[in-house]
């Protein structure tokens, strides 16, 4: 018997290690110590080649087309998509990838007259794997630009490497505030959001429009959770509101019971939950009677994102979010994107789709400005800095000085529209920056929100 205990003991240890190395705990490794060799088996690294590459390239450009600038090479532009295709974030990762591929397909795989070749790599939500894959994209595939990245841990480890090698890195999801604040870099752009902004918008709207004065905050216990709830708490307390309770469940905590059952009575509950955690949290919020107190629930725009919303049932109706996008947004571009995505992939576009899709437009516009010559990186960066899209699916977007997106932010509510539940915008904050109502200097002087955990309840 003792021997067997030993066997299972060591197995438990092994699995505990496996589990703790998963996305639940992904500390950013020091970027300097990346493995030199590519991993022996790169699982599922899908190589997406253009869907309809012409069989033979015409030797001369057709007369009707203006010849591209003399310097721009005629070889394809290589774009690497670094995303997550295995594990917990496999679904968001695929939505991100397909958002960009959809834009390319609509353009016949050509941007600014040059053919585009896409190489997709799976980062497995692991910072070290992400860095290895970024190196592979740069050194083996020779990509001109890398975009994507679901996880901030991966973005923080791959970013410095890409910047050192003067490759433009366009982040289309990862929200860690640092990426465009303390770790800002000339070669790093982000067209999704900084984590804290959604929370700040929610607090401002609730305090002013709903008269909320007391709040409970609950966020997954990692950087994104601290920053989303921290953004809410900073604006809410700044306006004069009071945070009466802070709870931080571990990330990847599918049973919210220990936390939901101790939520104190307040005017509102602000939460950051994502994926499976969010899927079980929203029904539990109703089943533990908190929703019926009544105590409204407002959170990040992932708590009811469209991939999980239909499964959350009645409990989700009336749940509020603050974020840079809402799937039910009534703009022509969003309606077109929603339909095109559904037609092509037979599933709903999600919050991870829009930034990747819009990235296609932003890259194209910058490429047009440099006449397709992406090889002149500094000129391309300058062009990208000035790109403005007035009619992206989420509205007018451009970059701020630190290369983070300036876009409308929305407060949205889960409503039943024509028999279907969706996130419908009920308030708009146009031209919102990552500094919200502060100047960049004021903001950067304040304590980073990731260090404010546990300090909001006075």
């Amino acid at each position, binding site marked *: 018997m003792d021997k067997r*205990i030993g066997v299972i003991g060591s197995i438990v240890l092994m699995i505990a290690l496996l589990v703790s190395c*998963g996305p639940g705990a992904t500390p950013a490794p020091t970027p300097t110590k990346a493995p030199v060799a590519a991993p022996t088996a790169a699982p599922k690294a899908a190589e997406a080649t253009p869907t309809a590459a012409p069989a033979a390239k015409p030797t001369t450009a057709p007369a009707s087309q203006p010849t591209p600038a003399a310097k721009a090479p005629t070889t394809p532009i290589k774009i690497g998509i670094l995303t997550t295709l295995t594990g917990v974030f496999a679904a968001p990762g695929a939505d991100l990838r397909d958002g960009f591929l959809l834009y390319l397909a609509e353009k016949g795989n050509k941007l600014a007259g040059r053919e585009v070749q896409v190489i997709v790599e799976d980062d497995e939500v692991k910072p070290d794997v992400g860095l290895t894959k970024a190196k592979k994209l740069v050194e083996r595939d020779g990509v001109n630009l890398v975009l994507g990245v679901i996880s901030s841990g991966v973005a923080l480890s791959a970013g410095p490497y890409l910047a050192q090698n003067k490759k433009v890195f366009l982040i289309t999801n990862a929200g860690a505030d640092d990426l465009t604040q303390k770790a800002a870099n000339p070669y790093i752009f982000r067209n999704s959001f900084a984590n804290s902004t959604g929370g700040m918008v929610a607090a401002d709207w609730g305090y002013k429009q709903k008269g909320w004065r007391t709040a409970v905050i609950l966020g997954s216990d990692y950087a994104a959770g601290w920053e989303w709830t921290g953004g809410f708490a900073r604006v809410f307390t700044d306006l004069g509101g009071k945070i009466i309770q802070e709870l931080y469940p571990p990330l990847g905590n599918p049973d919210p019971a*220990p936390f939901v059952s101790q939520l104190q009575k307040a005017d509102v509950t602000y939460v950051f939950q994502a994926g499976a955690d969010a899927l079980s949290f929203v029904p539990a919020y109703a089943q533990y009677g908190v929703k019926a107190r009544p105590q409204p629930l407002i959170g990040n725009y992932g708590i009811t994102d469209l991939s999980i919303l239909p499964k959350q049932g009645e409990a989700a109706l009336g749940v509020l979010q603050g974020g840079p996008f809402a799937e039910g947004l009534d703009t022509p571009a969003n309606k077109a994107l929603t339909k095109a995505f559904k037609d092509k992939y037979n599933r709903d576009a999600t919050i991870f789709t829009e930034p990747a899709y819009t990235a296609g437009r932003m890259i194209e516009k910058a490429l047009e400005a440099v006449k397709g010559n992406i090889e002149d990186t500094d000129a391309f960066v300058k062009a990208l800095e000035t790109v403005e899209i007035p009619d992206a699916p989420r509205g007018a977007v451009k970059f701020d000085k630190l290369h983070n997106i300036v876009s409308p932010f929305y407060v949205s509510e889960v409503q039943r529209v024509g028999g279907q539940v969706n996130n419908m915008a009920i308030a708009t904050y146009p031209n919102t920056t990552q500094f919200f109502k502060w100047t960049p200097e004021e903001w950067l002087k304040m304590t980073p929100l990731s260090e404010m955990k546990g300090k909001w309840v006075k």
Partner: protein
Amino acid sequence: MNFWILQSLNGLSYGMLLFLLAAGLSLSFGLMNIVNLAHGSYFLVGAYVGLTVMERTGNFMAAVVVGAISVGILGLLMQRLLLRRLTDHLAQVLLTIGFLFILGDLSLVIWGGVPQIIPKPPLFEGPIRIMESVFPSYRLLVIGVGIVVAIFLWWLQDRTAMGANVRAAVDDEEMAGSTGINVALLMTVVFGLGAAMAALGGVVGGAFLTIFPGQDMDVLLLALVVVIIGGLGSLKGAFVAALLVGLLDNFGKALFPELALFTIFAPMAIILAIRPTGLFGRA
């Protein structure tokens, strides 16, 4: 006061789920000497099958029955065709961990990576008032299911001929065989039953814990902890340990959320140090 009642109920319902999950693993470990790491997959696959049945029929009972039976058959086949041939622990570990990965990836291909949740039976959708606190009625149902299954298993083991045969085969396989008991068949049936119970746990748990890729690994870890604390091959041990782990996990998270894993593993380490065979294991 309110806090302690609510959190105890939370812990009990979670513990009952762990019992459904771990009972089969404990049996196969203790009785058959099989190290089955694919046990977490039974939970996951059972949950997914239950989800599909629920979506097609809208009947929760059907989801539970089909999920448990289909995975039970999967377990039977695995034991009959493969595991039975292996007596070496290392070979068993390698084979079953292979199944863990294969079944996990197959589930990802078939059911996708988006987290899922099984709709609850309408009767148990809402909350229930207990004194001045509010508690989900579904979690009370889970506690009830756990108790019923525990009684059924105890009856099966202690009061039926099959249970007697199993206990005989465990004590001395050769001797039991020589008295005419078909030991090989018995083991296969018990193994299949264990797989079916894990799947039952998957369907029941899938309605409040959600189902997602990678869950197989998470629940396997919990099941192993339960088996180690309770003692190999002891149903009583699995029951007590499951409730203990459920309560520890819940109170740990509620009181010290940052030590979430510690509150489970520290007691395991302590129990191993004091009683290496677990609470109810035989040396």
